[in-house]
């Protein structure tokens, strides 16, 4: 049988991270989805700069860490939340100091913007939102009269521009050697891959079986067509946890929040868990 599928390159975590150029817009998943924490640490080690970070539709520890490390110029998200761990210390500090540009959004705007990119259209309409102060602060959003409204009936509707990230970056439980990536019901990851120019994925493991050949697995699989580069990272979502695989490392996350309360504590965290980790890897 011919090989009918082109291969996706598999690289080291640092090589994968090197594909995230300084200044790139980078879409990442929330803590309950697939977070490529090994790659995030590699970006912090490298000292990536001027990233435009996009939470799909929100972002958690990844955002706080990258902001703390000075990697982020712009944050576009519906929220930066550490959930039960309380206020995000480095984000809060950056907001207070004005060191990052905020493009506050609301969840469905991010999804709709990515769907516009997925469909190759310049914009997507969305109901609601009008009257939110978000609208006044987002000069890239437009309000038009609904062209399909009944004659003479006022019906303003918001149009959101397509969001086409330079990079979609996430972690997934499994890939096969053709480059197909299994994400199960976490389809915001598929949307990210469809919408982005480049999709970088770290995975827990590789399967020798074609994920698309099993109709149960295929239903939750992003085809290799959308995957630019893969890297293997067992436990790669640590300390956040990975859907269906492993839980968050509560003790470590608690420790992060405590250490990151101050700039110097955060620096110590980075030395201990971002730089040293690598030496031992």
């Amino acid at each position, binding site marked *: 049988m011919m090989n009918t599928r082109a291969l996706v390159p598999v690289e080291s975590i640092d090589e994968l991270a090197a594909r995230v150029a300084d200044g790139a817009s980078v879409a990442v998943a929330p803590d309950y989805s697939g977070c490529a924490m090994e790659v995030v640490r590699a970006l912090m080690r490298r000292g990536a700069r001027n990233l435009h970070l996009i939470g799909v539709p929100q972002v958690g520890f990844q955002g706080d860490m990258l902001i703390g490390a000075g990697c982020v110029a712009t944050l576009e998200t519906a929220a930066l939340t550490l959930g039960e761990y309380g206020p995000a210390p480095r984000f809060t500090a950056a907001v207070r100091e004005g060191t990052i540009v905020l493009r506050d959004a609301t*969840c469905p705007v991010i999804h709709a913007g990515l769907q516009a990119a997925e469909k190759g259209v310049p914009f997507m309409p969305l109901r*609601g939102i009008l009257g939110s102060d978000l609208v006044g602060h987002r000069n890239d959003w437009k309000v038009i009269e609904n062209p399909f409204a009944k004659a003479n009936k*006022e019906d303003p509707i918001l149009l959101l521009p397509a969001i086409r990230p330079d990079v979609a970056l996430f972690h997934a439980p499994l890939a096969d050697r053709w480059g197909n990536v299994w994400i199960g019901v976490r*389809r915001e990851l598929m949307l990210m891959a469809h919408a982005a120019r480049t999709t970088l994925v770290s995975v827990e493991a590789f399967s020798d079986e074609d994920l698309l050949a099993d109709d149960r697995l295929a239903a939750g699989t992003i085809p290799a067509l959308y995957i630019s580069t893969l890297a293997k990272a067992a436990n790669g979502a640590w300390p956040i946890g990975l859907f269906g695989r492993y839980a968050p490392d509560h003790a470590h996350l608690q420790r992060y929040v405590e250490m990151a309360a101050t700039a110097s504590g955060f620096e110590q965290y980075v030395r201990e868990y971002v730089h040293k980790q690598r030496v031992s890897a």
Partner: protein
Amino acid sequence: MSSVPVPARPEELLIFTIARMLDDVRHVAVGASSPIPGAAALLAQTWSAGRMRVSVLGSEHDNFFTDGGRELFDCAAQGRIDAFFLGGGQIDGAANINLIGTGEYPRNRIRFPGSFGSAYLYFLIPRVILFREEHSPRVLVPKVDFISAPGCSPDHVYRPGGPYALVTGRCVFAFDRKHSRFRLTSIHPGHTVTEIREQTGFEFDTSSELVETPAPGSETLALIRGPVGEAVSKVYPAFAARVLGINAQGVA
């Protein structure tokens, strides 16, 4: 089931109070970090004999969405979600909510996580219940510093949804969409109108039928501490253990 019933705890009163607002609701969605509304939804579901659906967002349990992060929002826009809960770092008397921060945007004095889906769901879900345990002038302000989502919209704006009530640790306000004002309808046991006026930063009306918030009866308490509590413990284990004394393996 607990063999020695104790009087309703404050959280149980809130659970019961919110659950009563979910009567005849077909589908309620609730956040994974909202244990009291979540428990209320599970209680109301029990009353409905299973006819009500409860979606717990971001949870691996009772989250039956299979189309990614966008599905909740699409589902709401399709009219398939009847009730939802929102909170707010600040809530004002016109039911505007602020999830962004205090002080001036973008360099807020105190920054909250962000607006999440509030600016959307508040417009599209018919019965949005505002819930905030802290009832203080810090939270319930005359005017929010940032409108993440407005309480009311002009008539010509498409808005099938909006605020229904505000439940706090002290009382319940109903929301009058026509006049864009809250109306105090019930006061939790042990609290007073005077105290509520002092602790509320916005003006509000008072119902001519103002009552004490009804406490759950022994049957309801048995439900909350029994089968509902078990369900709650699967979704909100920390809350169930701390408040209801139930661990995920069963009744403690």
